[in-house]
């Protein structure tokens, strides 16, 4: 993963690249992430990731997945309600048009964090890599929160 991150902008010094990564830029598409929260309950149940994406670039950014060393699996999901029934389904990808914001929010799009590999407390940080269709990855820090606080 590290070698991959350093492949593209060889001209940039490592430190500067790290700054760019932590600031939330994916090269190719400039995507910024804010308000990243991981809603978790005690126990083994999966969690939900909520955040806002802002594509500041000139091209459509396509989020195709996510991963975290703290979970076996992370999937893009969408909840919806139809005729009084709550549905949820996995999504292959989410497109964020150039200049647009896209919100992963309760009862809408969310990351589903499955199979936690360690225990968490409220206030902990979880590192998550967002993966885009141009093979770029964006490292994002999620704050662990209780759904009661949302």
């Amino acid at each position: 993963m590290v070698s991959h991150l350093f492949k593209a902008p060889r001209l940039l010094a490592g430190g500067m690249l790290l700054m760019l990564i932590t600031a939330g830029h994916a090269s190719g598409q400039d995507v910024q992430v804010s308000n990243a929260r991981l809603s978790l309950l005690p126990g083994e149940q999966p969690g939900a990731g909520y955040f806002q994406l802002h594509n500041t670039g000139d091209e459509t950014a396509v989020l195709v997945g996510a991963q975290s060393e703290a979970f076996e699996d992370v999937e893009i999901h969408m909840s919806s309600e139809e005729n009084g029934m709550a549905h949820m389904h996995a999504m292959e990808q989410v497109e964020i048009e150039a200049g647009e914001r896209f919100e992963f929010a309760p009862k809408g799009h969310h990351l589903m964090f499955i199979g936690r590999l360690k225990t968490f407390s409220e206030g902990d940080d979880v590192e998550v890599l967002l993966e885009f269709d141009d093979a770029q990855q964006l490292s994002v820090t999620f704050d662990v929160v209780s759904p009661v606080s949302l």
Partner: protein
Amino acid sequence: MIKQLFIVLAALWLVGCVDRSWRTAETHEIMPPLDFSLIDENGQAVEAEEYRGKVTLVYFGYTYCPDVCPITLARLAGTLNRLDDDVRDDIQVLFISVDPKRDTPEVVKRYTNAFGTEFIGITGDLAEIDALTNRMRVTYDYEEPNQRGDYIVTHTSAVFAFDREGEARFLIRDSHPITDAVADINQLVDQGD
């Protein structure tokens, strides 16, 4: 005189009507009283009758659900937080799992404890859960398991309110403002005082 009396009676009748109506959705005409034989969060067999005496709010869900279920229960906890303490003492929330295979009593207990002392986890035999959901005319559906064996459950999204005698009164949907839910719950608790 008779005319005035009529106006007074008509006004009283109207007030009576207002008292019986809900800002959320009325269910008394369409839903039978709460009736089930299930397993509580301590692993004990329970009947619906054992929850009589308090206003009961019922939500059907499953703990493997990361988004809709916890957010709905969190919203409900937020709703209850707006009530006076003595009103809240008269309310219990039953989280009834429609996924008993994964939702053991221990799992639903840990899950509901996160939302407050009013929240009680209920699970049980699938046949008994089906008997309850069929009686209430609410549905749920299991989707195909993925390669890990995990599966999503589609389920009814409303919260159902029953009075102290277990009679169906109203249901709260996501689209109802919290202020409406607060007003109706207050009114339902008041009715039994």
